């Protein structure tokens, strides 16, 4: 070991460069290999979770509000807009399981990620069904007492 520290040539300019280059290559390799994961997937995941829960909550809140003023005889139609994409993916809002589970589900078609939002018992007295896909941004919730 003594020799290593004593020897000036051991850390010659060439060796210095090799070491630096190696470390830099190592770093950039890790970054390149994981770049998809780090720069695209993780942010996308976070954004999707956030926006899907937003969309689901919007639906659930709108249905709750609507329920509270439903006419005994008559109908309500209300238009709403949903974002075209959450993160980078298309999605579907599914209210068909609302009756049994009291839940509205927002599912991303490509990654299968889903976020569920509760609707607090309303579906038992007002049957809720239907799906809405993000391929169109304009949708309508419609209620008709005669149906």
């Amino acid at each position: 070991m003594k020799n290593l520290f004593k020897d000036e040539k051991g850390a010659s300019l060439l060796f210095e460069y090799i070491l630096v280059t190696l470390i830099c290559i190592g770093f950039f390799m890790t970054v390149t290999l994981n770049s998809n994961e780090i720069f695209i997937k993780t942010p996308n995941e976070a954004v999707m979770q956030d926006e899907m829960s937003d969309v689901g909550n919007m639906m659930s809140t709108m249905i709750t509000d609507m329920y509270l003023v439903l006419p005994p005889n008559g109908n309500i139609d209300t238009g709403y807009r949903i974002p075209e994409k959450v993160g980078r993916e298309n999605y579907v809002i599914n209210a068909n399981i609302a009756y049994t589970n009291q839940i509205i589900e927002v599912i991303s078609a490509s990654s299968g990620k889903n976020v569920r939002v509760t609707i607090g018992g309303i579906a038992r007295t007002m049957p809720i069904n239907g799906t809405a896909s993000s391929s169109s941004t304009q949708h309508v919730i419609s209620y008709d007492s005669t149906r």
Partner: protein
Amino acid sequence: MFDKKGQIAIDFLLGISLVLIALGFTIQFIPGLFISGSAGESSLDYTAYRTAAVLAEDTGWWENITMNGTDWENHPDGMLRIGLAADDEPRSRLTDTPNLISKKKTEQFLLLNESTIIEKLGLYNDVEDTHFAYGYNISILKNDRYLVLNNTTVHRGLPVPGDREMSGITRIVLIETGTVASFDAKELPVDPYSPGSENTIINITGPLNYELTIEIDNLNISGVDPSFKKLVLDGTNLNEGTDYTAYKVINGTELPLTSTGKIDSGGTVIFRMDPGLFSGSHTYQLQIDMKDITFTNTAPPIPEYSEQQEILYEPAYLEVVVWQ
């Protein structure tokens, strides 16, 4: 070790590696950094709003195989939805009086078990069919204190933690707190037991277990210092502050009235009586002594509280707070 040249590369490498490691960490952090702050929060906002809306504006619903209705407080077993709004027509689904909270429904709500409340109000987060319950605190506050109904405080859930992200919403509601009876002073009799035209009397039949409010308007003022002296129940003087509180109405607002305070002409006086005074099942006689205010009618009949009584609704704040 005394060489001054050899180490420069290792030194530099160590420095740059440290920076790179820190940078790597930072990049990994960035996406979560800006979004995590609001991710769960907006969901909590919506949940709090929905819960408060359903509680304050909906009547709730129950059903079994043959029947259904909004009077779930009488049928807690078949209860499908919790709602506290009062409803006089249990067959129709909606109420004409949102924000008017029923006392019976509130009492029943306080008896429900924890899992029923979480399940029926949807106070949970559903991740792959597993339910993670939110922490919640639902309470009704009046004058910054929990409202007390039949000796129970209206409060469900855990105390609000100070170190967590949470979301709350407050609704103004009217809640049934007791009964009120309004009397026209011109129809009140002079007290036959301690004669004097400044004293009057009201019969109150027990047992009563809710707060009583007696309102007397149209007072006939006969002197310069019209005021209220004391209340006497079956011969015993009542204590102001503990047994009752007195108010007078000025310009549509209630102001506290002490036994020396002046009453305005044409004014209304209000007495709030402690329910504990009327626990026995017999008729109590409440004697009201005034000064410079005269009564003209003669007894009998002595007016009876329960014949005049109506439900008293008072404003209160319904507070719903939820957290993860």
